């Protein structure tokens, strides 16, 4: 646990980088500091390993003041991942990862063994070990940066905008990878970013900081999205916080109706019967995989769907996993299709049923009134925590795979 107690930083010229701040980063959790530039988020982070000294207050790691050790000694016990990875260009990947163990006086063999093991942990191949940083892609460099920070198995990890310099696709990979690692390692992570999406995706708790180092709100992502405390937080979250919050809730509460689903080779009588009851029919193939939508008017008079070319069917946009995806994915699926209907599929891709935008509304309402999501990061991180018992919002299964992980 990292505790900031009335921590402040005022520079000699009077500039306040961090106003007196109280903040606690729980053990084994990811705490994200997010804010615009000049909000003191990096300053707060660097005070933990004393790269910056506060001018007021104290910082405790598991109750021990960070000033009780020499700065270099303290730093060797805290992992640090920096923007652009900050790898030592003159050292091989392996030597980079061996840095802290060697500083701690481990033997070369032990440090090398540990470094090789970590390369695998962060998803790099052993063949990368002998390369120099310039021979790696940005994403690979950052993986090495994470491995280097983890080398001596520190309980605390400081991550200073680690993924902000890589392209969005790689960033998403790295974020997913970090959550996977964290589910195995349970480090106490303090993560700085200016990207609110990243904060919401990664954070068990998110601290929103304003210019001048003012802590505006410190909450779980869902609470932040549901109840921003003030205009600053609200505007920082953006205009889609309601929709975004849905990504923390499972779509298992969505009623999926099988009636509009019809096989392309279904008997004419069945097709004609369904045409009467449904404005849109979802045509599926022999494997029950979706082909596309058909309006009632487009159904041939004799009910023979094979007369309709697959190309004439209306696109269904994308499907959502009925058991695995979030309400947000379900809603997006409905919005994307001209039929305004979402197609829910099982894990094998077979269509379970469809739901219109209107039919999604009750599930969305239920999510909005639920203070704690039944899936997503909140579920993952709060599981088994007696202090914050999870109260599922009525729908869904607690064993659902959190879709953000």
């Amino acid at each position, binding site marked *: 646990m990292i505790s900031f107690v009335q921590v402040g930083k005022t520079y000699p010229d009077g500039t306040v980088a961090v106003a007196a701040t109280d903040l606690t980063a729980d053990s084994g959790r990811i705490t994200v500091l997010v804010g615009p530039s000049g909000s003191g988020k990096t300053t707060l982070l660097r005070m933990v390993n004393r790269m910056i000294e506060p001018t007021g207050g104290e910082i405790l790691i598991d109750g021990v003041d960070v000033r009780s050790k020499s700065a270099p000694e303290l730093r060797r016990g805290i992992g640090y991942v920096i923007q652009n990875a900050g790898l030592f260009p003159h*050292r091989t990947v392996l030597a980079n990862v061996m840095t802290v163990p060697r*500083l701690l006086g481990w033997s070369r063999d032990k440090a090398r063994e540990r470094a090789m093991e970590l390369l695998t942990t962060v998803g790099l191949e052993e063949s990368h070990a002998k390369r120099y940083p310039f021979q790696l892609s940005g994403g690979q460099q950052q993986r090495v940066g994470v491995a280097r920070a983890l080398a001596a198995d520190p309980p605390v990890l400081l991550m200073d905008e680690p993924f902000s310099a890589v392209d969005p696709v790689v960033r998403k990979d790295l974020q997913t990878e970090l959550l996977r690692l964290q589910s195995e390692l349970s480090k106490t992570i303090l993560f700085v970013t200016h990207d609110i999406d990243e904060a919401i995706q990664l954070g068990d708790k998110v601290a929103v900081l304003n210019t001048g180092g003012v802590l505006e709100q410190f909450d779980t992502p869902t609470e932040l999205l549901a109840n921003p405390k003030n205009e600053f937080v609200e505007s920082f979250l953006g205009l889609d916080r309601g929709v975004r919050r849905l990504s923390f809730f499972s779509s298992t509460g969505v009623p999926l109706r099988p009636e509009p689903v019809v096989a392309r080779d279904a008997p004419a009588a069945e097709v004609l019967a369904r045409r009467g009851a449904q404005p849109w029919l979802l045509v599926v193939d022999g494997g029950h995989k979706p082909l596309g939508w058909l309006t009632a008017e487009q159904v041939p008079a004799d009910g023979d769907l094979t007369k309709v070319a697959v190309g004439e069917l209306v696109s269904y946009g994308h499907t959502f996993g009925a058991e695995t995806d979030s309400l947000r994915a379900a809603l997006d699926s409905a919005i994307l299709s001209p039929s305004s209907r979402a197609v829910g599929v099982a894990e094998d891709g077979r269509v379970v049923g469809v739901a219109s935008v209107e039919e999604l509304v009750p599930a969305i309402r239920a999510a909005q009134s639920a203070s704690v999501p039944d899936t997503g990061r909140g579920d993952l991180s709060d599981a088994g925590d007696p202090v914050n018992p999870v109260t599922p919002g009525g729908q869904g299964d607690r064993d659902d795979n959190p879709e953000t992980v």
Partner: protein
Amino acid sequence: MRSAGLFPHIPSYLGTYGSLIQQQLTMALLSVLFGLIAALPIALLCVRYPKIYPAVVGLLTVIYSLPSIALFVLLVPSTGLTQTTVIIPLSVYSLAALVPNIVEGIRGIPEDVRLAAIAMGYTGARRLVAVDLPLAVPPIMAGLRVATVGNVSMVSVGTVIGVGAFGALFTAAAQLSRSDLAVTGIVVIVALALACDLLLVVAQRLLTPWNKRRSA
């Protein structure tokens, strides 16, 4: 008098080509070595206290502009007509090439690398040896090349106090009207300078396999 061939006979009092080359290189390389040894602490002070850096560069430039002959005259009473009298001014001249390169080399280390080194828990001295200086090798080598090539040539000036190696050959060429000796002297000095330069380039490549600018 025979003057054919690349290496015409030289007056015996000058010794052999081999002994001249040896003198030339000894004085040139020792002065670069001593220059480097002196430049490191000066440069590190400039990195530590950036305010003194412009003054230091100014001072080194002024020193560089002093005629070497004048410095020899000043030194002869204490160091005599020896190689030391030649080596000292040349060492000091090397500083003008070496100090700024070391300073810029260390300053040029990317901020994220510098911060990462601090965050990993390096102490100041260890960081200098393990991170800062290795990363400053390319600019330091560039400074060494300038200083070395310059000194290999400038050693000749020592002939005014009688220890000029190939300088003595040029003096003899003037006195004996043997332009062939002068040409040979120039060719040998240029060849020595290029050879030293080439060795430094090779050394740099061996020292910096991580440098992407050459491996690309």
